[in-house]
C-alpha cells in the first residue's frame, strides 16, 4: 500500500504571498493515497529536510512529493534527503509551484492557488506510478579536451596538466595566445600583456601532460560524461611541424602580401606566416587563399629557401579521433563590427579606428612599432576622441548588454596615448563608468587626474571628415550642452560578441546558448562554469564578456571541476533510460533507426520456448534517456524509465479530469 507524503514549501514569501499554501495542504490531504501533507517555510533548508525525514518515520511514508521550486533547482537535494529516509530516490516527484506558478501568476492569487493544487495533484498521480531505480555506473576516461587556446584555454590546460591529467588543446589559429596576445598593456596594472602571457604559452608547450593541436577544429562530439569521442580536424598547414625549426626565412622571402588579421588589418603579413613573433608553436602556415603557388601554380619560393625541407605543398587535412572524459569550452569572442554605425564612419574614414586596431598601433610589435600615428598621413595626432559603448548597451543594434570591459579598456588606452604622446589631448565619451573590479576605480581616477583625460558624459551622434580633421558631434549631459571636437583620431571601444560560429559549436557539443549566442551556464550564480550537459564546462568569454582576471579565475574553476570529475574511477549516470518489453517487440528496427546515440542494437532472443526472434536491446551505458525511441515505437514495446507511458498518462488524467 503506497503512502504518499506531500510537503509544500512557502519559499519565504516567494510562494506564500501568491499561493494560499494552507489551502493547498488541505487539498493535498484529500488526494488518494496521501497519508500526510505539511507546510514549511523553507523546505530545502536543514530543518525542512529534517521535517521530511521525521514525517517519513512517523507516518511510514514510502513516496514523497515536494511542491516548491523548479526541479532544476532542488530535485537532487530532495532525492538525497529522501534516500536518507530509506526511500528510493525515484519514489520522489516535485511540483513546480514557484517558477511556473506563483511567480508568473502574481496578479491572480485565486487562480495561482488552484493551479498549485493541480500541480501537486499531478505530482502525486505520477509518484504513485513510479518505480524504484538504481544508479548505473560508467568508467571515467581521465583525459581532458580544451577547446580554444586563448588565455582561458591556456590556464585551464596548465591547471589540468599540473594536476597530472592528460590534456589536449585544440586551437583554430596557427598559434595559441588568443585575444590577449593582441593587447599591448593590461589594466589596471599596466603590465605588458605579451610579457605575462608568453611564459604561460611556453609552459603549456613544455608541459608533458599537455598536447597542443593548433590550426585544428573540433568536428564532432559523441558520447557522454566520462566518455566522449571527439573528431578533430587538423587543417593542412603545408609545413612539416617536426622538420620546421622556426627560422622564419620562408616568411622573409615570401613575395605575397595580404592584410594581417592579428594586426586587425592595420598592417600586412605574408602568405606564409606566423601571426606574431612569440607564436607557440613557432611553425608558420601557408594561407592557401593568398599563396601565389596555390593561386597560380608557380612560385615555390618558400620551398626553395627552406633550409630544413619542411614545406609540403600536397599536405592534406587530417581527422583524428580521440577519447576524453571531460571537455572545457574556451572558444572566446569576436569583436563587434563597428561599420554597423554609419554615423561614425568606421571603414569610411581612415582615422576612425576600433579599440583593437589602436591596441595594435600602441604595441611595440605592431605595424607602426608602437608609434601612434594618424593612419591618413602618418602624423602624430593631437586630439584623440574615445567613444565607449559602441555596439554595447544599444538595443537598436540588438546589443542590449554592457560590454563589461570597455570602460577600463578605454581608460587604459587614453593613458597609453598620454604616455606615448604627452602633449596630446584625450577625450572620452561615456554613458556610465563601470569600474567595479579591484583597483579599477582608482585606475579611472588616475586617468582623469594624473593624465588629465577629459571625460564627457554622453554619446556621440555623428562624426564626419572636415579637411584633415574629424569633426565629432557629441554632448555633455552634465554641463548640458552640445560638444564639438575637431579630432585627429577617433577610437571606437570594442564590444565583445560571440564567436561568429558559436551556434555551430554549441550544436556540436549539445550545449545551450542565449539570445546573443553566448553559451549558457548551468546556473548564472551557483554553477557558472558548468553546462546542462555534464562533463562539458565553460571558461572565459564564450559565456559572456569577461576581462582577463575573471577569465583566468573561471578557467581555474573549470579545471577544478574537471579534476573533481576525474577523482572518481566510475561515475553515476541517471537510470532514467529506455527499456524494451521483449514480448511486444516486433523487431521493426524503427527505434534503432531514430536513436541519436546508436544505443539500440538488435539481438536474437528466445521469446518463447524454441522461438527465436531478432528484437531490440538497449545498451544501457550508451542510452541517455531522450525517449525518441519510445515516441516512435509502433508496438509500445519500448518504454522510458521515469517517464513511462503509464506515468505520463497518470499526469494527463490529473490535468484533465477536474
Amino acid at each position, binding site marked *: 500500500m503506497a503512502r504518499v507524503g506531500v510537503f509544500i514549501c512557502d519559499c519565504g514569501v516567494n510562494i506564500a504571498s501568491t499561493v494560499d499554501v494552507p489551502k493547498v495542504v488541505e487539498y493535498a490531504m484529500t488526494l488518494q493515497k496521501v497519508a500526510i501533507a505539511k507546510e514549511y517555510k523553507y523546505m530545502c533548508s536543514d530543518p525542512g529536510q529534517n521535517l521530511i525525514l521525521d514525517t517519513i518515520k512517523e507516518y511510514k511514508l514510502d513516496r514523497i512529493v515536494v511542491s516548491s521550486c523548479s526541479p532544476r533547482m532542488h530535485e537532487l537535494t530532495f532525492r538525497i534527503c529522501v534516500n536518507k529516509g530509506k526511500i528510493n530516490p525515484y519514489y520522489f516527484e516535485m511540483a513546480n509551484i514557484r517558477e511556473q506558478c506563483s511567480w508568473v501568476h502574481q496578479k491572480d492569487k485565486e487562480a495561482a492557488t488552484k493551479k498549485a493544487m493541480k500541480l501537486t495533484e499531478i505530482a502525486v498521480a505520477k509518484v504513485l506510478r513510479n518505480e524504484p531505480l538504481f544508479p548505473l555506473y560508467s568508467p571515467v576516461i581521465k583525459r581532458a579536451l580544451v577547446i580554444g587556446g586563448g588565455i582561458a584555454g591556456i590556464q585551464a590546460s596548465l591547471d589540468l596538466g599540473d594536476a597530472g591529467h592528460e590534456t589536449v588543446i585544440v586551437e583554430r589559429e596557427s598559434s595559441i595566445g588568443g585575444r590577449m596576445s593582441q593587447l599591448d598593456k593590461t589594466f589596471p596594472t599596466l603590465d605588458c600583456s605579451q610579457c605575462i602571457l608568453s611564459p604561460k604559452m611556453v609552459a603549456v608547450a613544455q608541459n608533458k601532460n599537455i598536447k597542443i593541436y593548433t590550426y585544428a577544429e573540433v568536428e564532432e562530439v559523441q558520447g557522454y560524461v566520462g566518455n566522449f569521442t571527439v573528431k578533430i580536424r587538423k587543417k593542412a598547414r603545408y609545413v612539416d611541424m617536426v622538420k620546421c625549426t622556426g627560422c622564419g626565412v620562408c616568411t622573409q622571402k615570401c613575395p605575397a602580401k595580404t592584410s594581417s588579421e592579428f594586426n586587425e588589418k592595420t598592417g600586412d603579413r605574408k602568405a606564409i606566416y606566423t601571426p606574431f613573433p612569440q607564436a607557440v608553436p613557432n611553425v608558420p602556415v601557408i594561407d592557401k587563399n593568398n599563396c601565389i603557388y596555390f593561386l597560380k601554380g608557380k612560385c615555390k619560393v618558400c620551398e626553395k629557401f627552406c633550409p630544413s625541407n619542411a614545406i609540403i605543398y600536397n599536405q592534406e587535412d587530417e581527422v583524428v579521433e580521440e577519447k576524453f572524459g571531460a571537455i572545457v569550452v574556451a572558444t572566446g569572442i569576436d569583436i563587434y563590427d563597428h561599420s554597423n*554605425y*554609419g*554615423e561614425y*564612419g568606421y571603414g*569610411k574614414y581612415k582615422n576612425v579606428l576600433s579599440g583593437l586596431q589602436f591596441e595594435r598601433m600602441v604595441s611595440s610589435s605592431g605595424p607602426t612599432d608602437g608609434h601612434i600615428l594618424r593612419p591618413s598621413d602618418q602624423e602624430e595626432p593631437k586630439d584623440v576622441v574615445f567613444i565607449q559603448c559602441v555596439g554595447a548597451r544599444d538595443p537598436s543594434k540588438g546589443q542590449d548588454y554592457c560590454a563589461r570591459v570597455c570602460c577600463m579598456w578605454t581608460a587604459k588606452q587614453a593613458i597609453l596615448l598620454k604616455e606615448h604622446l604627452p602633449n596630446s589631448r584625450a577625450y572620452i565619451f561615456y554613458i556610465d563608468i563601470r569600474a567595479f573590479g579591484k583597483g579599477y576605480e582608482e585606475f579611472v581616477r588616475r586617468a582623469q587626474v594624473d593624465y588629465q583625460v577629459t571625460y564627457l558624459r554622453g554619446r556621440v551622434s*555623428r562624426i*564626419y*571628415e*572636415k579637411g584633415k580633421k574629424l*569633426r565629432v558631434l557629441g554632448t555633455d549631459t552634465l554641463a548640458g550642452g552640445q560638444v564639438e571636437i575637431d579630432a585627429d583620431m577617433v577610437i571606437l571601444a570594442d564590444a565583445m560578441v560571440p564567436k561568429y560560429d558559436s551556434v555551430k559549436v554549441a550544436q556540436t557539443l549539445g550545449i545551450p546558448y542565449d539570445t546573443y549566442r553566448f553559451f549558457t551556464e548551468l546556473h548564472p550564480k551557483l554553477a557558472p562554469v558548468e553546462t546542462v550537459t555534464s562533463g562539458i564546462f565553460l571558461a572565459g568569454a564564450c559565456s559572456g564578456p569577461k576581462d582577463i582576471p575573471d577569465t583566468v579565475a573561471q578557467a581555474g574553476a573549470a579545471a577544478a571541476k574537471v579534476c573533481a570529475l576525474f577523482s572518481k574511477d566510475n561515475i553515476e549516470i541517471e537510470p532514467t533510460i529506455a527499456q524494451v518489453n521483449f514480448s511486444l517487440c516486433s523487431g521493426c528496427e524503427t527505434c534503432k533507426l531514430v536513436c541519436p546515440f546508436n544505443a539500440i542494437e538488435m539481438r536474437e532472443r528466445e521469446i518463447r520456448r524454441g522461438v527465436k526472434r531478432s528484437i531490440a536491446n538497449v545498451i544501457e551505458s550508451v542510452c541517455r534517456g531522450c525517449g525518441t525511441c519510445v515516441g516512435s515505437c509502433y508496438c509500445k514495446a519500448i518504454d522510458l524509465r521515469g517517464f513511462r507511458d503509464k506515468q505520463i498518462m497518470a499526469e494527463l488524467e490529473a490535468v484533465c479530469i477536474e
Partner: protein
Amino acid sequence: MKFAYFPGCSLHSTAKEYDASTKFVCGRLGIELVEIPNWVCCGATPIHRTNALASIALPAKNLLWAQTENLPVAAPCSECFSRLKLANLEVAENEELKKNVSEVLGETYEGNVDIYHLPQVIIEKIGLKEIEKKVAKKLSGLKIASYYGCLLTRPPKVATFDRIEDPQFLDNLVLSLGAESVNWAYKTECCGATFSLSKKELVLKLTNDILQNAYDEKADCIMVACPLCHSNLDLRQKEVEKKYKVKYNLPVFYFTQLIGLSMGADIRGLGLKRHMVSAEKLLSSKGLI
C-alpha cells in the same frame, strides 16, 4: 510601368518646375503617372504636431484610390512620401488605428499600398543602366552635391532603400549622368522646412550650414529631390548670403531637371528659368547649354 502620382501641394505652386521635369523624365523612361483624382494635402508636419489621427487619415484618404485601383504610389516630395508611407505602415501594424482611420474616412483602408519616393521609382524600378542608355549629353565637369535632406532617409522604418547614414543612391545617379559627385557631410542634415514661415531665423542658420559645407567641398551646384528642400536652399539663398555676409551662388536643381538636361531637354521646358539662383551661367560655362 504605371504609378498613382501624388504630386503634393508644392508641385502645384512653388515647385511647378519639379512637376514639369518629373513628367518629362517619366515620359521618356516609360513610367506612366496617373494623378490621384482630387487628392488633398498630406497634412505635412503641422498636422502631425496637432492631430495624431488626422495626420494618418489625410494620407490614407489619398491612398484609398490607389488601393481600389491596385496601383503603387509615387510621391516626388519627401514630406508627402514620408507621411503617406508612415500612414500606410502604422495602419498595417495597428488594428485599432485601422478601425479609427476607416471610421473617420467612411471607408476601410487596409494599409497595403506600395509607396515609393520618386527617386526610388526611377533608380530602383527603372535602373541606372536604363538611364545611362538615355543620356544624350553627359553632364561632364559638373560637380554636384546630392542633398537628401531629412525625410528621404529617415526614419529607418519608412526609408528602407539605402543605408541611413551616408546614403548613396542620388550620388550614383549623378555618376550615371556623367557628372562628378561631391563627397560632403551635410547631405542628410535638415534644412528646417517646417519653420520656413514661422521661425525663419532658425531656418537661415540651418540652410547656411548646408550651403557652406557644399561650397567648402567645392560643389558647383546642389541636387535635391524635395520641393521643400529646394525652396529653402534656392528661395532663401540670397537672404542667407545677406545675413551671413557670404557669397555662394549655388544653383539648386531637382534631380529630374538634371536627368532631363542630360536627355537633351530644353531648359525652359524643365523650368530652369524659374529658379531664384540662376543656373544658366554655370551650365553655359560647362558647355551644357
